[in-house]
């Protein structure tokens, strides 16, 4: 899956950034340059995909 940063800017100029296709904690670093360039972070959350990948990593380590 290609690594994508999706940016959606609302009609009022509020911006939402979402990273897709990154492995591990790379997703947190991937969009940092855009977050810092665009303004002040209001909130941050991890998606279900983030936790699924973390759970898979943990399972692999336990085997």
């Amino acid at each position: 899956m290609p690594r994508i940063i999706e940016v959606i800017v609302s009609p009022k100029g509020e911006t939402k950034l979402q990273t897709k296709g990154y492995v591990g904690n790379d997703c947190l670093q991937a969009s940092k340059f855009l977050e810092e360039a665009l303004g002040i972070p209001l909130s941050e959350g991890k998606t279900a995909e983030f936790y699924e990948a973390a759970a898979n990593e943990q399972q692999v380590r336990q085997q």
Partner: protein
Amino acid sequence: MSHIVRIQTRVHDPAAINSACQRLGLPVPNHGTARLYSGEATGLLVQFPGWQYPAVIDTLTGTIHFDTFEGRWGDQAQLDKFQQLYAVEKAKLEARKKGFQVSEQSLQDGSIKLNIIEGS
């Protein structure tokens, strides 16, 4: 992995400001001091059509000073559109600096979506 960040836009970059103005068909803003109803403000002056006072962009703080008296002296929607286009143009500038590919798409609710893909 994936995470989502919501951001309040701060208007710092003159190049992105110019691009946003261009998209709106506005002249490139000049630096100056304007007298608003609430007092003087210094920065990049953007005169929106039909506005009594210019909007003044302080690029150091990234904030915009304006007086519209709740829409009586100017349509807020024009400033909103400017802020939207600023964020779009700024994101595109930064992504291209890093060599990423960018595509832009208008959404039905009036939002603008960018897909930024890392180069191969």
